[in-house]
């Protein structure tokens, strides 16, 4: 058999793994790999402008299409720049395989030029990582990396490649299958537990289904929809789980948590049986733990045993993949013709409809100044709810989650766990690579967009037209909001006294820029932008700087202790524990 270099082996592995795009940035330690990439066309390398963007683009690609995202960075600063992107993927359980260059094995530990301990630095924020010291182990390690990244609870896996390993030669053999004695995730749920769960679920008087990113990652949306409609129960999604159940369906009560709807949080607070699916009881969801679902017995389906009873003790844990477990539940219910308590359910829905009538997402319109919520509503209308939406982090992210109604999984792409400003633009680019024919919009703010703005150049180079919806209020709005509420309006370092002219800036990168200052121009501008199919358009919406995200459960508050918008008429009319501004 022919002997080939480590670099050639890596490229062949990627090809055999079916990798379409490799997002990366070259440097000294990965030169052999780039040379091997040069002589082939199967794996398309996308040259970003910053390694963090390579990770976010690979991440956005993966979230959009479900296949693993792949990135390649050089040693030292290449790797350290990538760490934010790796941590971001880790927190949201996104399957990525990241290759980093490393100094030659003989120099490891010598403080060589552009040396960092990549495996050490990334250890706390990867699912697993490898340092390949022997070229004969390379192909097998790559296979393991893809296997680990994409199975069980997915996550990023890093493979660190010393330069000498990429030039050393060996025979190429890519294993078809891999088995690890120490890693064997449970996919099928325990039949006894499933039976117990079904009994508890059907005994509910005030049931509530609460689902998270796990449903999307496992492609469990069809099963979730079937089960939810079979039961007729109300359902809420976490920020990471939006789209798993159609937001326009009557049974959907909106997102829950810190900026969730009134009806979602009140239904959580008052439910007697909670069915948690692929969600991890994050602090932004639970609020104060001892006030979380005080009357509920809890069923929890998750592929990761460590997510179960981590924050909230559950009554019926089921370890397994979401579609698998839900199919089993549906079978039990259908085969035995089991029924839920329809009378109690009707009563419960009447209560939920009362909470719904509060209209917690209503806001004051204005003819003078653009309300950020209005921009999202118009974006939703003009894209007919069909665009892939990415977001950055802050107020705009919450408004996007609240006002764009996601009807399908993988349509909503945002940094939930780590909350990484700068994620939105490269993620949108990644999503566009996955679905070149779909409309992709990045909802962002004047703070976040400046963290990854350089990617406008990448988007020009590869012609990935994205519509950038910038909600420009001149502030770091979410931080400003907290300063307003909790720091007596001392707006320390949240106002940008200087912002670039985003229109000119975008045009300098070769794209189209638009500045929109009046509410009456919002719709027209959006229509114009989306009509330009093959252009990236930066829509700089000058929005009301004083607008806040409501509803809001202040940090440390319980689910029923929501702040609704500044609507005085509600002060004396509603439920206990509700604090109004």
């Amino acid at each position, binding site marked *: 058999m022919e002997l080939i270099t480590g670099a050639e082996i890596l490229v062949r592995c990627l090809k055999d793994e079916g990798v379409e795009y490799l997002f990366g940035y070259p440097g000294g330690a990965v030169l052999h790999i780039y040379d091997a990439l040069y002589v082939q066309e199967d794996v398309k390398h996308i040259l970003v402008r910053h390694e963090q963007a390579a990770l976010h683009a690979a991440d956005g690609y993966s979230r959009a299409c479900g296949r693993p995202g792949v990135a390649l960075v050089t040693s030292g600063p290449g790797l350290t720049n990538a760490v934010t992107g790796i941590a971001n993927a880790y927190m949201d359980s996104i399957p990525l395989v990241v290759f980093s260059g490393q100094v030659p094995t003989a120099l490891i530990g010598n403080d060589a030029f552009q040396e960092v301990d990549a*495996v*050490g630095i990334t*250890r*706390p924020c990867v*699912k*697993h*990582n490898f*340092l390949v010291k022997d070229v004969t182990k390379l192909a097998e390690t790559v296979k393991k990396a893809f296997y*680990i990244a994409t199975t069980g609870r997915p996550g990023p896996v890093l493979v660190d490649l010393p330069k000498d390993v990429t030039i050393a030669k060996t025979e190429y053999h890519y294993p078809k299958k891999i088995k*690890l*004695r*120490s*890693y064997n995730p449970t996919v099928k749920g325990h039949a006894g537990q499933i039976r117990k769960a079904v009994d508890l679920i059907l005994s509910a008087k005030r049931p509530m289904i609460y689902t998270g990113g796990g449903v999307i990652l496992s492609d469990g949306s069809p099963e979730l929809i079937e089960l939810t409609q079979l039961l007729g129960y109300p359902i809420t999604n976490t920020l990471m789980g939006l789209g798993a159940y159609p937001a326009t369906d009557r049974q959907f009560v909106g997102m829950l948590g810190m900026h969730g709807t009134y009806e979602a949080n009140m239904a959580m607070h008052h439910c007697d049986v909670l069915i948690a699916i692929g969600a991890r009881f994050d602090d932004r969801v639970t609020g104060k733990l001892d006030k979380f679902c005080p009357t509920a017995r809890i069923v929890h389906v998750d592929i*990761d*045993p*460590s997510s*179960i*009873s*981590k924050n909230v*003790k559950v009554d019926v844990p089921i370890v397994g993949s979401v579609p698998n477990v839900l199919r089993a539940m549906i079978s039990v219910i259908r085969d035995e013709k089991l029924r839920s308590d329809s009378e109690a359910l009707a009563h419960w829905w009447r209560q939920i409809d009362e909470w719904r009538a509060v209209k917690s997402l209503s806001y004051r319109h204005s003819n003078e100044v653009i309300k950020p919520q209005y921009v999202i509503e118009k974006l939703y209308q003009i894209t007919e709810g069909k665009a892939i939406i990415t977001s950055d982090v802050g107020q705009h992210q919450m408004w996007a989650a609240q006002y764009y109604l996601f009807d399908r999984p993988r349509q909503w792409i945002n940094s939930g766990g780590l909350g990484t400003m700068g994620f939105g633009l490269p993620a949108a680019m990644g999503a566009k690579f996955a679905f070149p024919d779909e409309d992709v919009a990045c909802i962002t703010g004047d703070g976040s967009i400046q963290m990854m703005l350089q990617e406008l150049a990448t988007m020009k180079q590869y012609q990935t037209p994205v519509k950038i919806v910038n909600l420009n209020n001149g502030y770091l709005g979410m931080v400003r909001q907290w300063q307003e509420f909790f720091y007596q309006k001392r707006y320390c370092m949240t106002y940008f006294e200087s912002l670039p002219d985003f229109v000119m800036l975008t045009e300098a990168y070769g794209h189209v820029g638009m500045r929109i200052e009046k509410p009456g121009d919002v719709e027209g501008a959006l229509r114009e932008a989306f009509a330009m199919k093959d252009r990236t358009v930066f829509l700089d919406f000058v929005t009301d700087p004083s607008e806040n995200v409501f509803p809001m459960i202040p940090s440390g508050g319980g689910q029923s202790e929501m702040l609704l918008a500044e609507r005085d008429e509600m002060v004396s009319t509603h439920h206990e524990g509700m604090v109004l501004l």
Partner: protein
Amino acid sequence: MNHNDRHLISILMENEAGALSRVANLFSARGYNIESLTVAPTDDPTLSRLTLVTYGNEQIIEQIVKQLNKLIDVVKLIDLSETDAIERELMLVKTRAVGEQRAEMKRLADIFGGRVLDVTDATYTIELTGAGSKLDNFLRAIEKDAILEVVRSGATGIALGQKALHA
């Protein structure tokens, strides 16, 4: 059950570079306590056995066990505190031993089943094995001023009966 009970957790893991760091890292990253830790390869050179002592309430120990199991390098583990098991630790103690102290020190070492490994005209070096609590008792039994140096291996253990941990 909110007591911070002591748990002896024994882990069979891949004998790979970095495996130990992953375990240690997990404890520091998640704020768990780690009192002692001991690790060595097994009869199968591809596997290491790591034993650690930690404290926590039921919920914390459950999380520790789950998080450890989640590490890719961990093949299997057992919480030896949840089963009939034997715990052993090795301790080497250098004590002052002059005049009447010499006979007293030797007598105490004998009572605790220790062995004197090295003798000088002013010191004894004593080897002792046993459960951690027995070693603590020995240190309490001898004069505090007489202790020159204490080296402990950290606890290790094995389940009693037919139960065995293997890949």
